[in-house]
């Protein structure tokens, strides 16, 4: 059974994530200490909050190189929501914040219509069989104002939700725009699949 280290960057919904992962594996920890996290097979980069605060805390913990090293050692990284945004080169949120540049695309504001300031709720996601779900199109819970638009041929291994990138895989890195820890049964299946694959 794989062990999971959840990276604590301050404002994540760490309680929810810890609860969800501890249903799957007994070996889970929440920490911002490199010395603790390095013992774990899978790292989760969570994210609830704003990009500016997230980046500041990210810098403070000095975990950037450790996370990149972790993936280079062929160990798994799961990035969720704001953590997922940090897999990309840049986000325009909070005046512009640089990411880990694992994917070269930019994260931008996804909603310009006056009625909606955030994309919150349950939305259908495509190609979910690749996340361990029986159906190839399933509902997940989203809560974001920024995201990555899917344009022709700009991604290889991915699923979308109304032209917004919902998930992406590259080798041992998985990014999820939605919150599996709060997506009820579908979320449980995805987390179980990712942690135990």
């Amino acid at each position, binding site marked *: 059974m794989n062990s999971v280290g959840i990276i604590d960057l*301050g*404002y*994540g*919904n*760490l*309680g*929810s994530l810890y*609860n*969800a992962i501890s*249903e799957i594996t007994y070996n889970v920890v929440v920490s911002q200490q490199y010395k603790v996290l390095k013992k774990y097979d899978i790292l989760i980069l969570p994210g*609830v*909050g*704003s*990009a*500016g*605060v997230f980046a500041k805390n990210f810098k403070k913990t000095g975990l950037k190189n450790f996370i990149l090293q972790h993936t280079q050692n062929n160990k798994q990284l799961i990035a969720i929501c*704001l953590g997922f945004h940090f897999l990309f080169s840049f986000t325009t949120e909070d005046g512009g914040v640089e990411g880990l540049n694992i994917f070269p695309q930019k994260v931008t504001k996804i909603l310009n219509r*006056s*009625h*909606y*300031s*955030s*994309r*919150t*709720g*349950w939305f259908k996601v495509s190609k979910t069989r690749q996340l361990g779900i029986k159906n190839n199109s399933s*509902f997940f*819970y989203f*809560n*974001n*104002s920024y995201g990555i638009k899917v344009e022709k041929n700009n991604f290889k291994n991915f699923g979308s939700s109304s032209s917004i990138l919902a998930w992406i895989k590259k080798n041992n890195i998985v990014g999820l725009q939605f*919150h599996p*820890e*709060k*997506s*009820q*049964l579908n*979320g*449980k299946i995805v987390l179980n699949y990712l942690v135990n694959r």
Partner: protein
Amino acid sequence: MKKRLIASVFIFNDKCYQTISYNNYRPLGDIKNILQILDRHQVDEIFILDRNKNKGLNLIILEKIRTSKVFTPIIYSGAIKTCQDVKEILKYGVDRIAINSSLWDEKKTLDIIGAIGKQGVIGVLPFKIINNEIFFFYSQDRIFKKLDSIFLDFIRNLKIEILLIDTLADGFLKGFNIKILNYFNSSQLILQGGVLSEIQKFNKKNIVGIAVENRLLWKEHYAINLRSKNNFFINKNINL
């Protein structure tokens, strides 16, 4: 965008209550059990309004939320005054926070939104309309304050979701006073109190959710029936 079906849970001094007109309290039971039932009914979100007589965060309730281990998104409201409070609450299995009294303090509100992002914050405005005059509930002092335009402009410009609770229609099937909607034409709204039997009236673009107080909890298959009768809700093909 499909609307969310949100279960609303009211807590007063560490116990869950069913409320009528935001006043008459009838005991419902333990928060942990209630959360687990609502999780099983697969409501889209659970909103917890915690009115605690103490001024600080209610760690007793937060601990019960944490140990309930539900997989449904939880929005929590109760004595949130600082960014540190937000940070603390998110450790207990809460996903979004809702604020009321802090809305009257611009700096506090902006600090909280700056820390967690607009998508993580809901403004809660319990209201009543008497003789065409609008009053908003200010939970810190437990009083209703008359609507003033500066406050209203500030709230509207925040561009966060607003939960409007009609306190006079609270606990009833109908009676939500739609006059309030004229003041929030361009805000993302969640409505609670007297909306259920006239639910189609609220099929408007800027209404993103309907919060239901008690019926989701104690009426068998109520969530499923609501979803099947009103196609503006998400239908997740639930198997109980």
